[in-house]
């Protein structure tokens, strides 16, 4: 029996390693090419290690401005999303009303709508109301597109905070807003971190929204500028493209690790999405 189990474990280990190996190949390529002086399209051991690729792209025009744009765009939209979601979740979690259920169902319905499909009408609408190629327009749209899921998550996390502490605060005359800010939100710190990181990561990696709503090259976030870079120079400078990919991807990977650590394993987001 014990031997049987050991051989089953070995079989499982080997199959997983085979899949992991296949999944790792593209990741290994980008890591090796970033430091390879003569990077090509296939995985190979570099014939020397260099930081020239990073040197070549660490300029305001290629890296700093797009990353700063991404930070302002996604940071602003995330702040707006989380603030609106926390405010909206409070009455939904604390007070009963006949409208709660329909509202939550609508929100849940909206979480799974394909946002890609409405980008053409959003573009046409933004042209008419003069929001096209503006930072605030893109921030508002980003926030609205991420808001349904943020409300849903925040409400679920808030349900986990016991009411007793707030009731004590109410009898002391605190308003709902005060008890939300002073009592409930501090108690759901990890939950808020998940909502914040998830919204930010989704926006940081999003290509289609800024691709459609922004036009001026100097406003473009990294997700769009990397595409232009690729079209113009990446076709030959694979090492530089790889270096840029590494720099642009690192923040979201670190953020994910941070959140996954805090909530015990990578299952937090998957479990949260499940409902």
């Amino acid at each position, binding site marked *: 029996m014990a031997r049987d189990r050991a051989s089953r474990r070995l079989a499982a280990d080997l*199959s*997983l390693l085979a899949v992991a190996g296949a999944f790792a190949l593209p990741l290994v390529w980008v890591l090796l090419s970033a430091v390879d002086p003569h990077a090509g399209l296939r995985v190979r051991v570099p014939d020397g290690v260099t930081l020239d690729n990073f040197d070549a792209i660490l300029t305001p025009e290629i890296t700093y401005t797009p990353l700063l744009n991404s930070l302002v765009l996604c940071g602003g939209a995330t702040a707006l999303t989380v603030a609106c979601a926390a405010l909206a979740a409070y*009455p939904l979690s604390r007070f009963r009303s006949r409208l709660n259920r329909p509202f939550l169902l609508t929100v*849940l319905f909206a979480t799974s*709508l394909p946002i890609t*499909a409405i980008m053409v009408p959003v573009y046409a609408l933004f042209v008419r109301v003069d929001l096209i190629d503006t930072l605030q327009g893109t921030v508002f749209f980003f926030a609205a597109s991420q808001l349904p899921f943020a409300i849903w998550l925040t409400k679920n996390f808030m349900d986990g905070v016991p009411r007793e502490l707030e009731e004590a605060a109410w009898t002391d005359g605190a308003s709902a807003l005060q008890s939300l800010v002073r009592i409930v939100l501090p108690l759901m710190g990890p939950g808020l971190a998940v909502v914040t990181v998830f919204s930010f990561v989704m926006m940081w990696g999003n290509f289609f929204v800024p691709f459609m709503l922004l036009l001026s090259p100097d406003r473009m976030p990294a997700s769009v500028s990397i595409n232009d870079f690729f079209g113009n120079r990446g076709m030959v400078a694979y090492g530089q493209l790889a270096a840029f990919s590494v720099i642009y991807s690192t923040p979201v990977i670190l953020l994910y690790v941070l959140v996954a650590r805090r909530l015990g394993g990578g299952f937090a987001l998957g479990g949260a999405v499940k409902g």
Partner: protein
Amino acid sequence: MRARRRAARFLPLTPAVVLLLLFLAGPIAYCVYIAFTDLQLTGQAHSSFVGLANFRRAFRDDAFLNAVWLTLVFTVLSSLVGQNTLGLALAALMKRASKPVRTFTGGVVITAWVLPEVVAGFLLYAFFRREGTLNAVLGWLHLPRQNWLFTLPVLAVSFANVWRGTAFSMLVYSAALDGIPAEITEAAEVDGAGGWRRMWHITLPMIRRSIGTNLMLNTLQTLSVFGLIWVMTRGGPGDRSQTLPLFMYEQAFQNSMIGYGTAVALLLLLVGSLFSAVYLRLLRTEV
């Protein structure tokens, strides 16, 4: 007085509701409206109502039917077959594997998921190119090589979507499998049920709700993939990997037919809503 105070309690909902109405419900309503007009990108003073003409045109348009077919192939291959099955297999194997292997595999698969869409596109573009890693591996194994992005573009972008999206299914199924009580699996083992039979008769029925949820969410995600395909093939060569989102974009911007592009978008939105409604029904008891 009391009613007013009760209404005031729901005031904090206002910013969220305003944002959702203006920037989500508004565009959807506008989408429904311009899908029935001949709005164009430039040089037109005003658009006029054309009824169902855009939709009639779509169903006679070979390029549209081609996009529908490719979207179907892309969704079935990458979401239903690829992400879903591979995700379940990984989750089931992880329950038996040793901890270091489990952590390593989880880390690699999740990294592919967390990477920005455009970066994932580049990595797989390099992987599938004629000079890329896949052909190097195939050559090493003495298997036939191909110019994948040219000969089988839909297959290449489907594999790319599997690479990028499997982590989600893996996470959902890992959580679901952890929810099955150990006694049930052990009882079946004592009764002599082998691995496959246990999977088919016990595990799958017990996680059927997670399967439903996962299929819906995978499909919705796959229907709206744009950046990945755009970076890898631009929908080409020709229109051989042009799924509906790319077709919609081309009609609206390369051909300046915003009205027509939006009609296609509306059809995509309707299909999405249908899946979304099914997903809600699956979750019904949990809200």
